[in-house]
C-alpha cells in the first residue's frame, strides 16, 4: 500500500529540481583506495521549519534524523557534534549566500547539509543543500515536494545525491535485501530495505527455501525450495502472483541472474552430473556453461555479464573458477586454502568476495578477479558467510555467528564498520542484495 502511494509521488519528487544546477565534484572527496579509512567530517544541523507549525517542525526533525542515519550507513562520514555548533540551526541562513563557512570549518566539518521544511496546501516541501565548507561552495541543491510521511523517501533521494557528489556513484538507496530466516520453524525467504528496515516475508512454503537472487530489474526473485519435495528453483515475481519453474529432474541450486538480462545461471544435475546452465527467465535451458565431472555450483556474474565466477571441486577441493563466455575458457582463481565457496562479484567489477574455511571457521575475503592476494575482511568473530555486495560495491552484507545465532551484518567493502543489520527471531542466512530498483 505504502509502496503504491510512493510510486505516485516518486515522479514528482524526481522532477522537483531547484533552478540551481548541480555542481559536480571537481576533485575526489573520498580516498579511492579506502574511503572508509579516513571518514569525511560532515555537519547535519536539524532542518529549519516554522516554529509555529508543529507538523512542519516534526517533519523537519524526522527528515534530518533520517538523513543522518542514511549518511552514517554509507560508512563515508563522521558527524560533527551538534552541541559544538556555533550556529543555531533554527536561525541560520540555509541558502548559499548566507552560509558562514568559517563557523563550520572551525568545528572541523568539511561538509555541511542544510535543510528547510515548509508545509503548503497540504504538501510538504523539503529544500536541501550540500556545501563544501573548505572550498566555500554549494555542491548539491534540491527541492522535493510530497506528503509529510514521505520524509523517508526524501532523505534517501538527497542522500543518493550527496553520495553521488562525493563518490561519483549513486549509492544503494533504492535497493533491498532478500534473505533466509527460520523464525517460523521453516526456512523462508524474507525481504527488507537496504538498511534492514521494513522486513516482510516473501515465501510461505512451510518447507526449506534457500538462495534468493534478484533479477536486474528487481521484479523477480529466483530461489531454491523443497516445496515440491525435491530442491527445485522457483522464479517468482516480487509483487504479482506469477512464478516459473525449471522442468528438469535432480538438484536445482543457487540461481544467479545475468546483469541486464532476463536470464539466469543455475546448477542443475539432470544430466547425472552437476553443471551450471544458462536459463531464460522463464526457466528454459539455453545452454550448458560448465563441463567437468564433479561439483559445479554457485555462479555469480561480472557486471558486464561476460564472465562468471563459480565453485568447482574439479581440482579436489572446492575452489573458485572464472568462466569467460567470450573465450569459453575456465581459469582457477583461488589457490590458498582448501575450502573457498560463495563467490560474489562486486557490481563495480573490481573485486570478488567469497568465504574461505580454515580449521572449521569460515571468514570473508575479497580477491581481484584477475588473481592475486586475497584480502581478509572478517576475523575472530564466529563464522562469517555468504557475502553480498551493495549495488554500488561500497558495502557488503553477510551472515555471521559472532553473537551465537546466525544473523545478518553489514560492513564496508574494506571490512571496516561491521555492525548488525537487523534483528529477527530465529536464524538468518543467505542474504542477497538487490540492484537499485527505481520502479519496484
Amino acid at each position, binding site marked *: 500500500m505504502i509502496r503504491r502511494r510512493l510510486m505516485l509521488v516518486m515522479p514528482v519528487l524526481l522532477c522537483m529540481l531547484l533552478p540551481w544546477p548541480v555542481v559536480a565534484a571537481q576533485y575526489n572527496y573520498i580516498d579511492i583506495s579506502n574511503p572508509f579509512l579516513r571518514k569525511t567530517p560532515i555537519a547535519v544541523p536539524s532542518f529549519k521549519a516554522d516554529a509555529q507549525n508543529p507538523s512542519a517542525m516534526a517533519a523537519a526533525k524526522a527528515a534530518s534524523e533520517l538523513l543522518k542515519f542514511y549518511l552514517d550507513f554509507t560508512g563515508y562520514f563522521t558527524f560533527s557534534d551538534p552541541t559544538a555548533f556555533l550556529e543555531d540551526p533554527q536561525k541560520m541562513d540555509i541558502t548559499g549566500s548566507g552560509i558562514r563557512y568559517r563557523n563550520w570549518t572551525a568545528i572541523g566539518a568539511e561538509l555541511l547539509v542544510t535543510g528547510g521544511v515548509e508545509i503548503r496546501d497540504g504538501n510538504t516541501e523539503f529544500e536541501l543543500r550540500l556545501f563544501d565548507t573548505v572550498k566555500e561552495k554549494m555542491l548539491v541543491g534540491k527541492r522535493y515536494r510530497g506528503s509529510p510521511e514521505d520524509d523517508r523517501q526524501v532523505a534517501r533521494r538527497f542522500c543518493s545525491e550527496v553520495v553521488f557528489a562525493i563518490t561519483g556513484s549513486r549509492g544503494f538507496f533504492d535497493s533491498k535485501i532478500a534473505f533466509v530466516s527460520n523464525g517460523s520453524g521453516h*526456512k523462508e525467504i524474507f525481504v527488507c530495505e537496504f538498511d534492514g528496515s521494513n522486513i516482510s516475508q516473501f515465501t510461505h512454503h512451510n518447507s*526449506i527455501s*534457500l*538462495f534468493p537472487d534478484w533479477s536486474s530489474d528487481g521484479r523477480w526473485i529466483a530461489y*531454491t525450495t523443497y516445496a515440491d*519435495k*525435491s*530442491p527445485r528453483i522457483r522464479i517468482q515475481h516480487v509483487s504479482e502472483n506469477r512464478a516459473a519453474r525449471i522442468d528438469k529432474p*535432480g*538438484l536445482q*541450486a*543457487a540461481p544467479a541472474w545475468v546483469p541486464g538480462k532476463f536470464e539466469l545461471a543455475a*546448477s542443475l*544435475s539432470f544430466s*547425472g552430473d*552437476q553443471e551450471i546452465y544458462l536459463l531464460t527467465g522463464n526457466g528454459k535451458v539455453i545452454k550448458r556453461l560448465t563441463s567437468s565431472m*564433479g*561439483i559445479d*555450483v*554457485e555462479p555469480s556474474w561480472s557486471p558486464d555479464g561476460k564472465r562468471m565466477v563459480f*565453485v568447482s*571441486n574439479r581440482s579436489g*577441493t*572446492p575452489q573458485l573458477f572464472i568462466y569467460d563466455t567470450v573465450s569459453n575458457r575456465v581459469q582457477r582463481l583461488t589457490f590458498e586454502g582448501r*575450502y573457498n*565457496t*560463495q563467490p560474489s562479484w562486486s557490481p563495480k567489477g573490481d573485486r570478488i568476495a567469497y*568465504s574461505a*574455511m580454515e580449521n*572449521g571457521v*569460515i571468514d570473508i575475503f575479497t580477491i581481484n578477479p584477475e588473481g592475486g592476494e586475497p584480502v581478509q575482511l572478517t576475523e575472530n568473530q564466529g563464522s562469517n*558467510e*555468504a557475502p553480498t555486495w551493495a549495488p554500488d560495491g561500497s558495502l557488503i552484507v553477510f551472515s555471521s555467528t559472532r553473537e551465537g545465532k546466525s544473523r545478518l551484518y553489514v560492513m564496508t567493502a574494506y571490512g571496516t564498520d561491521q555492525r548488525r543489520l537487523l534483528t529477527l527471531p530465529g536464524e538468518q*542466512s*543467505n542474504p542477497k542484495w538487490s540492484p537499485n530498483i527505481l520502479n519496484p
Partner: protein
Amino acid sequence: MKRKWIILAMLFVIPAMLFSVSCAKKAVMTEPSTTDTSAADEAARKAELEKKQAMERQKQLEEERLAAERAEKLKAEAMQRDMMMSKNRFLNENIHFAFDSATLDNQAQELLKQKAMWLRDFPDAKVVIEGHCDERGTNAYNLALGERRAESAKAFLVNLGISGARLTTISYGEEKPLDLGHNEEAWAKNRRDAFVLE
C-alpha cells in the same frame, strides 16, 4: 509319522473286532448263563477300558497337534521379527562419509551389500536415498555434495543388480542434521546417506 498311523488304525480296528466278536457270541448263545454273563461283563469292562485308553490317546494327539501349531506360530513370529529387524536395519543403518567426500569406504560398501540383499528379498520396495552433510562448509556446496553422496550409494546398489528405477535420490545438504552437536562426533553422524521407503 508312520507309527502314528499304525496307532490310529489300531484304534479303529481293535474296537471293531471286539464288537464283532461279542455280536457273534450273542447270536450263538440263546440261553443266558452266569458264566456267560460274567464273560460279557468282562468284555464290556475291557471295551470300556479300551475306549478310555483310546480317548486318552486322542487327547494326547490333540495336545501334540496344538504344540506343533504353537511352535509353527512362534517360528512365524520369529520370522516376522527377523523381517522387521532386517527392515529396520535397512532403514536405520546409515552409511557415513569423510569430510568433503562422497567416496564409499569399506564399511559403507559392506552396509550397502547388506542393503542390496534386503532389496533383493523385497523386490517391491522402492527407496529414497537421502544425502546429508555436516554443518561445516557452506550450504549450496553442501547441497551439491549431499546429492553426490546419495548418487554414489545409488550407483553402488545398481552395480549390485538393484534396478535404478527403485532408487531415487535427494540431497538435504546441511539442512537436516541428525545430531545438533558442534563436535566431530556429531559431524561424523551427520555426514550420511539415509534410506527411506517410498
